């Protein structure tokens, strides 16, 4: 039996290179920013990471490290521990769940590391700042847009089909209640039917189709996320509704090729409202906290961008969208 040395050496060399590759880049950055992301597996999170990377690139003395918890809270706790072990100068985190991540965030905060919590909350107050969006506000803006659109088209009644997200989830509840407030601006707007797609396009199609079977007189399809609006669009076409007379709108406003910006440019969705992630704001605040010693507000609520056919092109520029 012989032990072959050459292939073994090659294997070790390959492993060495693989492990050291990230360190071959400039190690002399002054500040290391650790970003614990809960998952990389959906377009909103991918856009989130891209925006974080682009924002950090504007600061030449920032080294950004992004770790993927793969939707596992246990792993995210270990991820944060490892980031702390790497002596990051600031921690940005989008927590998978509130309770499991509270202790480790508190540990980082108590150790003097500035902690910026994004998108989802942890419990208590042991963090530097929280930056998040306001789903109720965004739902309200969507409702106000529908009210305005129905008035311009002079539709009476203006029937709305709502396709909601997962009914137990806070974003769905807030996007629904905000919308109902927003449409009050126009008494002709009627929320005729509400179905659920649980955030998924594949479930939106049959849900909307069932609604169209009962009643073909819908002018507006409003879904809590753009993917579901696309599902509603498919169902409307299948039911032979005149989509050119209808408004399809949703929330997210993503720049990828399956997202709202491209869809609006291609004429399917009529409007979308960006659900912001706070990446750029987080990097700016990290800069202020680390370099200028500024004390940030505990909570920053992000606004939203309205995307329609009118401004789709410039929004495409702003968000670096994947239009052909």
């Amino acid at each position, binding site marked *: 039996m012989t032990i072959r040395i050459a292939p073994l050496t090659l294997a070790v060399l390959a492993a060495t290179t*693989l*492990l050291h590759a990230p360190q071959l880049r400039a190690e002399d950055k002054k500040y290391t920013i650790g970003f614990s992301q809960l998952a990389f597996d959906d377009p909103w999170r991918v856009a989130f990471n891209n925006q974080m990377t682009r924002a950090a690139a504007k600061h030449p003395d920032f080294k950004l490290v992004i*770790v993927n918890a793969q939707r596992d809270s246990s792993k995210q706790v270990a991820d944060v521990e490892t980031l702390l*072990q790497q002596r990051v100068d600031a921690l940005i985190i989008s927590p998978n769940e509130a309770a499991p991540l509270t202790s480790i965030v508190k540990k980082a905060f108590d150790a003097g590391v500035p902690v910026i919590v994004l998108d989802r909350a942890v419990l208590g107050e042991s963090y530097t700042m929280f930056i998040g969006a306001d789903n109720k506000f965004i739902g309200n803006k969507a409702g106000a847009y529908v009210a305005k659109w129905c008035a311009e088209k002079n539709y009476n009644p203006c029937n709305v089909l709502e396709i909601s997200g997962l009914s137990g989830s806070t974003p769905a509840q807030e996007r629904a209640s905000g919308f109902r407030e927003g449409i009050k601006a126009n008494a002709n707007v009627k929320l005729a039917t509400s179905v659920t797609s649980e955030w998924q396009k594949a479930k939106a199609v049959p849900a909307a189709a069932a609604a169209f079977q009962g009643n073909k007189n819908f002018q507006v399809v409003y879904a809590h996320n753009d993917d579901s609006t696309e599902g509603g669009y498919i169902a409307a076409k299948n039911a032979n509704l005149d989509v050119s007379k209808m408004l399809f709108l949703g929330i997210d406003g993503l720049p990828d090729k399956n997202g709202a910006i491209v869809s609006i440019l291609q004429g399917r969705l009529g409007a979308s409202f960006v659900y912001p992630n706070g990446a750029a704001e987080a990097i700016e605040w990290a800069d202020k906290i680390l370099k200028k010693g500024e004390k940030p507000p505990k909570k920053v609520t992000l606004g939203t961008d309205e995307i329609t056919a009118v401004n789709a092109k410039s929004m495409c520029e702003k968000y670096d969208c994947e239009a052909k």
Partner: protein
Amino acid sequence: MSSTLALPRINKLVVLHTAVRFQGFLGLLIVFLLGVAFAPVKDATNLFLDVTNQMNILRYVAETGIIAIGMTLVILVGEIDLSVGAVLAFGATLTAYLLTTAQFGSLGTLVVVLASGAAFGFVNGAVSSAFRIPSFVVTLAMMSFARGLARLVFGGVAIPLLAISQGGSAPEEAFFVNMRLGGVIPVPALLMFAVAIIASLALRYTPYGRHVYAVGGNPVAAHLSGVRVEFTKVMVFALCGVLTALASFVHAIQLNQGAPNDGFAYELNAIAAVVIGGTSLQGGIGTVAGAVAGAWMLGMIDNILNLNNVQADVQLLVKGTLIVVAVALQRLQRRA
């Protein structure tokens, strides 16, 4: 074409045999050395070698390690248990429920949760035995069943588990899980080592332990020698269930919640740890210590890759490769 080490023939065989027999520990040592070699150094501290880091690793692998010990027993008799992840989810949610809503107290909760694990395990073993259904199928079904039960019974959402001092309603003693011996060694790791020691001693020095190896090695011969094969098998499933339930208690306390959707793919991590540690999937060969070494090694690899900012996806590649290498080494041992 390839240079070879010119060793006398007998020594090479002995080296190979020893290497494979202790492949779990050898692997652990190699990974540890690689970790030290490739670790970033900041403020004159080797970030991998640092005690805090090593303790973090131990804490993180403890749950997988405890489950892997139970899985070793099952695999030793030539069976498999795919339901551990779902049973963990049920146990964790039950833990949170009993400690908060039901106000059962720490000891009462632990006893009930361990009993629930035993019950799931017992059902796995009994159904497999009585209806002569392969354990792969039975535990696959239990994987679904336990998960569904966890969601149904507890309402499908995570139950927060906070101590009274944190604003919740759970007793403080339950959070002993978060303590560290001497301020250094995390309790989950101590539990893993304690369970490993007890299980190793039991496997080696008790009649039941010998029966486990006998049934796994050759069930027919074992039966003919008077070993109660069915009883032995049902017991290992029950034991695996108890250990999974212990891990679920630790899990819930550490995460401050009991979530019926947790524990996904935990069975794969446990099986990987067992296999990498040198236990054969055919049964009859392997050690509990090897499983702990396997779990520890996987945790170390995750940590090394994280410290060096290597992508999470690469970790999956490494895990997959290791499993194949470990099984191949076992084949080598049998052939040589």
